[in-house]
């Protein structure tokens, strides 16, 4: 009973110190609850549970968050206990046994923990509607905006139980920390370095080489190299980063120190010495911040770019709201009936015949090239006449351009996913049709037919008619190529009416071939990239707040130990102005360096993402700069949050050392 009173009094006395602690605990609880509640939410689970990919994504995300929360809580707790060394030693001096001090700390942890649990869950409940709304709004095309306010009891139960266990573990971890304290240690405030390391030139060079190699591969590697080595790149850069913070940065500091004329200035001397004194204890945290901020930023920026480009991307690939091949002509009556039922009036419908031709190609030097695999000696080509093709570009919702072809010439259209380098191979080559030869004078990606055709050509109308009569073309599908009539339809509400698209799908998917609906592509993209964005934002928010508060705790802890140094420095003539400068120089790098390294990483990580995702998987143009611009905003936000924490930390630090 007396112990509880003492615990409560301690909290009251050190309210400011506890406030940060309390804030981070509450935030952890809030995070966990929000996430669990989100998983339980009816609308959300309806939206995502049907696809195992999504539920896998969400649960993986959940596990990552929990591991992170755990890591964060335990290390902040340890810092917190260390920050209170003096207080604890006073108890020990008054004859309180270690066991009892441990119980006192346990009690305090539990009191703060339970309060944090209440606040965290309550705010979680208040925000649950908002988080669910945001998630659904960004992931669903047909989401109408209504969501019920809900209190999720299983989520409350799980959160409460989990955190009670975590808090208990934290409380018990306190015992371990205390039992490692020697009373004498407690009074000799940190005479021993926490592992000042001189660093090693070898590690510095090695880390630079590792990171540099990673950067080099990411930046200058061909798409194929980047795709194959994306995991090695990641490993190179991550290991390089940790080595840098463990051994390289200390070396940089000691190099700075060897430049006597700048190091032996009062402010530099004090702050650099103090910073390198703590290097080891904070190195891993800084490296983790650098790596995670780069990963998070890249993921979000990539997801977000995809997300915002989704509509354009959909039509780049599919061109129309709906397209299919073959099918009985009479089915169009049923299609019109469906539009009528849904009151859709603006409709464009177009049907064209598609032919295949057997084309001989003789390109020298193809065998030893990547493109060699694509162009055999003979290939099936889809053939369009210029007027049909131009009609298609007219109707397409992307930027496919009409063509103007002279007699004896042809425009080659490659599969949408072919890289530009493949297309160049065939430019200027001769194509041997059974009764004539045409020359390829231009090439483009096929943006008007999404039936997976590898090779297509467009011919001048007169050439086309002549060769058709000569029997060079066939309307029957052969091999990989898909000839036959194609029908395309554009209509109102194509991307927003779920029921309309569903009805069309029901009608057509059995009776036609190669059916594509922009709506389904679009909504799936929304779900995936929306989810990626959401998870990314959620995770970054959690991550940034937690790492920032960890830095805060570590610095406050350091302040307790550095207090007597400032006292002494003042006596030997450090004035208030110099003291301010010292504190700034002492703390600023702690926040700045990891962020700066993270930014640098992102610049290159973004390039990898750009190569892998945008140039190879989902082509979007000029993405690198867009993504960089977007991530600049994200880093702006990071910088602001870190800045706020920096000032809070500085304030608290200055107060403690005063």
């Amino acid at each position: 009973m007396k112990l509880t009173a003492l615990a409560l009094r301690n909290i009251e006395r050190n309210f400011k110190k506890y406030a940060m602690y309390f804030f981070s605990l509450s935030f952890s609880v809030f995070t966990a609850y929000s996430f669990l509640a989100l998983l339980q939410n009816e609308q959300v689970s309806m939206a995502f549970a049907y696809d195992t990919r999504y539920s896998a994504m969400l649960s993986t995300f959940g596990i990552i968050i929990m591991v992170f929360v755990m890591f964060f809580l335990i290390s902040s707790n340890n810092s917190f206990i260390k920050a209170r060394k003096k207080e604890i030693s006073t108890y020990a001096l008054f004859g309180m046994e270690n066991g009892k001090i441990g119980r006192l700390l346990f009690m305090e942890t539990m009191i703060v923990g339970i309060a944090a649990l209440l606040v965290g869950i309550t705010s979680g409940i208040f925000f649950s509607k908002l988080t669910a709304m945001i998630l659904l709004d960004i992931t669903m095309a047909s989401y109408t905006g209504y969501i019920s306010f809900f209190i999720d009891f299983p989520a409350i139960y799980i959160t409460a139980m989990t955190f009670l266990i975590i808090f208990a573990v934290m409380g018990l971890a306190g015992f371990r920390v205390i039992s490692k304290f020697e009373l004498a240690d407690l009074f000799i405030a940190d005479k021993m370095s926490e592992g000042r390391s001189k660093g090693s030139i070898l590690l510095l060079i090695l880390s630079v080489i590792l990171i540099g190699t990673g950067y080099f591969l990411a930046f200058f590697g061909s798409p194929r190299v980047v795709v194959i080595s994306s995991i090695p790149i990641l490993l190179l850069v991550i290991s390089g980063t940790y080595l840098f913070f463990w051994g390289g940065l200390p070396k940089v500091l000691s190099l700075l120190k060897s430049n006597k004329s700048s190091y032996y200035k009062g402010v530099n001397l004090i702050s650099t010495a103090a910073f390198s004194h703590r290097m080891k204890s904070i190195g891993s945290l800084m490296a983790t911040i650098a790596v995670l901020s780069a990963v998070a930023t890249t993921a979000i920026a990539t997801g977000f770019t995809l997300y915002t480009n989704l509509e354009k991307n959909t039509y780049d690939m599919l061109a129309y709201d709906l397209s299919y091949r073959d099918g009985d002509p009479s089915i169009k009556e049923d299609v019109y009936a469906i539009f009528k039922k849904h009151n859709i009036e603006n409709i464009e419908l177009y049907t064209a015949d598609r032919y295949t031709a057997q084309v001989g190609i003789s390109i020298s030097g193809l065998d030893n090239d990547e493109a060699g695999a694509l162009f055999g000696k003979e290939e099936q080509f889809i053939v369009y006449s210029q007027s049909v093709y131009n009609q298609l570009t007219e109707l397409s919702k992307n930027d496919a351009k009409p063509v103007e072809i002279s007699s004896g010439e042809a425009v080659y259209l490659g599969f949408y996913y072919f890289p530009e380098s493949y297309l160049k191979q065939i430019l200027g080559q001769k194509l041997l049709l059974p009764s004539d030869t045409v020359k390829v004078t231009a090439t483009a990606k096929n943006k008007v037919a999404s039936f997976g055709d590898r090779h297509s050509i467009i011919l001048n109308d007169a050439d086309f008619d002549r060769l058709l009569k000569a029997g060079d073309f066939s309307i029957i599908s052969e091999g990989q190529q898909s000839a036959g009539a194609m029908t395309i339809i554009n209509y109102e509400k194509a991307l927003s009416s779920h029921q309309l698209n569903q009805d069309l799908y029901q009608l057509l998917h059995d009776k036609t071939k190669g059916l594509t609906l922009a709506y389904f592509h679009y909504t799936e993209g929304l779900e995936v990239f929306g989810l990626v964005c959401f998870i990314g934002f959620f995770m970054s928010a959690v991550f940034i707040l937690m790492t920032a508060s960890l830095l805060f705790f570590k610095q406050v802890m350091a302040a307790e130990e550095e207090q007597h140094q400032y006292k002494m420095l003042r006596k030997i003539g450090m004035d208030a102005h110099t003291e301010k400068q010292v504190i700034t120089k002492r703390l600023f790098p702690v926040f700045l360096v990891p962020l700066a390294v993270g930014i640098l990483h992102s610049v290159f990580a973004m390039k990898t993402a750009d190569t892998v995702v945008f140039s190879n998987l989902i082509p979007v143009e000029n993405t690198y700069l867009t993504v960089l611009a977007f991530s600049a905003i994200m880093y702006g936000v990071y910088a602001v949050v870190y800045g706020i924490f920096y000032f809070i930390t500085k304030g608290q630090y200055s107060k403690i050392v005063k």
Partner: protein
Amino acid sequence: MQILKVENISKIYGDKKNARQYRAIKSISFEVKEGEFIGVMGASGSGKTTLLNILGSIDKPTNGRFMMGGKDIATLSKKQLAKHRMENIGFIFQNYNLLETMTLKENIILPLALRGTGVREMEEKVFSLAKDLGIIEVLEKYPYEVSGGEQQRAAACRALITNPKMILADEPTGNLDSKSGKELLDLLTYINKEYKATILMVTHDVFAASYCQKILFIRDGEIYNELHAGENKKQFFDAIIDVMSVLGGEVR
């Protein structure tokens, strides 16, 4: 030559309007000449530390003046005080108070670094001092890597490096065993002789005090008595014990 002149200084702790104000120093006047090694003695709570803090300009007197180098230090602004401290005063603390984040060398040059002295000058001063005090071999080590005696000498170097007008030491032997205590006193005596340093040492240790040339005894914030060392060290020692037994300080 006189370097410090204290005139009627007093120190009152607590709010002036507050009834619970406490006069730690009532009215003290004395002078210090260049090259003197002065002891300040008195019972615990008599105001020794308060006096020393005022002389070291860490604290301001409530009333009175004290002149150093022709200036009334009590009237200086905070910034000027810091500068004054840096230029004119060297401190030797209990527990040496070296920064554990720095090597001995860095600790020693710290006061000069804060002044913005050039690297060459610093290096020269460090080496001549360190050589003289015998710590040249351990200059690049950190405080926890060297012996207590070496830390002590490093602290002395730090106090000396600015050529201060006066070195202040508040119970420097308070936490030391008798052997290291004696070492420190010998060191102070050496500094006093060789560097002509003016030293003012607060102590309530009779043995430590017997190293001084002159001792001021303080009781309840006032100077009670003053003793000068004579030819005979034993006599001086006995005289100190006599005064201290009247003052009620513990005699060791």
